[in-house]
């Protein structure tokens, strides 16, 4: 039971990444690799600040700002520098590796005996593992509500239009470069924020913690889409959160088969690949017709 609670907690915490990536990957139509750099960047920023005695809440917000700056760099290189999308992300991600080492001073910093957002007295009264469920739920609820509000504003609609049809957006006066940069800043800010929260939950920041992040975040988006199909934009954001939890439960199931945590990246990749192929498989194997036949009444 407690292991399932733990998975739900992880799912809620990691959902921040899925929702953040949704902004660029789905709305802006921009496969942003920067996230593999901004995630550990956020973790490094927060953990380094906390270990220097800075308030953990302030450190977590600072991580957002630093991540947004990474997004700004990606955005400027892409819109003004005209560097291809994928390459831009890889450049900033690679550069972030060195910056993370500078910030941390070593490849790994522990938060042992340091305060974090998980050490508030209120959380100590909760049963084991419920602290991450509680914190994760509050954070993802606030972020999702804020995004739902934002996407319904004039600015949010212009942002959506930029990703949907940049040509049309420009023809009605939307500054698409600015919208792209804003989306990348918001997305990477949230990813770094997520990195800060997850590092505090783990109790350390590690230079390699960004590896495979994009696959994990994508998995929650795709699993949510495969599970729920056609939804409104707001519904799709919620589906990402549920997808993130489902993904953790799938991992849990796979690990219980005897795989080790070293296999996680391989398993993540396979889960994502299968989820992405599901619509094709469904068609090829005629699963729908088989299922329909199975439940149809005989005449």
């Amino acid at each position, binding site marked *: 039971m407690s292991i399932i609670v733990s998975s739900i907690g992880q799912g809620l915490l990691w959902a921040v990444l899925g929702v953040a990536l949704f902004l660029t990957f789905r709305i802006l139509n921009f496969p942003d690799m920067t996230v593999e750099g901004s995630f550990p960047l956020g973790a490094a920023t927060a953990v380094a600040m906390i270990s220097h005695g800075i308030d953990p809440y302030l450190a977590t917000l600072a991580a957002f700002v630093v991540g947004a700056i990474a997004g700004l760099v990606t955005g400027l290189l892409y819109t003004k520098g005209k560097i291809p999308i994928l390459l831009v992300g890889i450049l900033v991600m690679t550069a972030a590796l060195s910056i993370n080492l500078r910030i941390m001073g070593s490849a790994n910093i522990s938060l042992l005996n340091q305060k974090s957002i998980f050490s508030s007295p209120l959380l100590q009264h909760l049963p084991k593992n419920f602290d991450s469920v509680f914190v994760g739920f509050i954070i993802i609820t606030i972020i999702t509500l804020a995004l739902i509000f934002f996407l319904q504003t004039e600015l949010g609609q212009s942002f959506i239009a930029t990703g*949907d049809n940049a040509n049309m957006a*420009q023809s009605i*006066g*939307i500054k698409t470069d600015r919208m792209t940069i804003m989306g990348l800043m918001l997305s990477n800010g949230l990813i770094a924020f997520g990195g800060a929260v997850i590092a505090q939950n783990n109790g350390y920041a590690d230079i390699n913690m960004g590896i495979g992040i994009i696959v994990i975040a994508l998995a929650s988006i795709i699993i949510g889409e495969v599970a729920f199909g056609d939804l409104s934009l707001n519904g799709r954001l919620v589906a990402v959160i549920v997808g993130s939890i489902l993904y953790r439960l799938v991992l849990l199931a796979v690990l219980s088969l005897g795989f080790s945590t070293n296999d996680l990246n391989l398993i993540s990749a396979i889960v994502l690949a299968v989820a992405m192929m599901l619509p094709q498989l469904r068609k090829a194997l005629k699963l729908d017709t088989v299922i329909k036949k199975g439940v149809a009444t005989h005449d």
Partner: protein
Amino acid sequence: MTEPVFSLKDIIVTVGDNIQILKSLNLDIYEGDFITVLGTNGAGKSTLFNTIAGNLSIDSGQLLHHGHSIAHDSAVTRTNYIARVFQDPKMGTAPHMTVAENLLLAEKRGQKRTLRNRGLTKEKLNEYAKITQVMGNNLDTRLNTATGNLSGGQRQALSFLMATRVKPELLLLDEHTAALDPKTSEQLMLATNEQVTKNQLTALMITHNLADALKYGNRLIILNAGDIVLDVRGQDKSDLNEADILKYFIA
């Protein structure tokens, strides 16, 4: 003598290896002009539009808006007063957004887009039902449909409505009916004419349909090899026939 709204003076536009697409082109556009633009492929019609809209920069000459140079204004800045409808139905609308959402976006042309709620109210939807009804193609019943699911004709009608939602000082119609079947094309052309005339819009309309070029508009220009070879208005335009026009089509 009234001042022209837009004035092109000795405009030269070159591409690639010094190939002149527009050769010292002169054109004054006055308020209320509904100009049909004819010319063979490569005559410079699209280049003329891209130059006015700001997608192409000019090599020499002057581009004036109420007497002020706009040659250095970006295309996005110029959308404050210039609106455009493209030939390709996919170009002018956001496919995953609904008809109403697209109209709402277009309504903010020339304004700052802020963190105010977009304001898609019941009153707005009723208003949109009214303005889409005039296009006569059931667009009014599909306000909450994603535009990607509309027919080409409906999408072009929507593009037209979006371009004119905020009255532009100049409307550029770039063969906006060319990708449609003959019946739909005619229907959109009639609706276009009605709206342009009723709202006294100033418009340039590229077409390859000689009959349309003669029938619609109050002024007609023919481009050939990067320059205007015929510019007629009013009675002179009405007196033209297709045979007259073809004489100007020199490859």
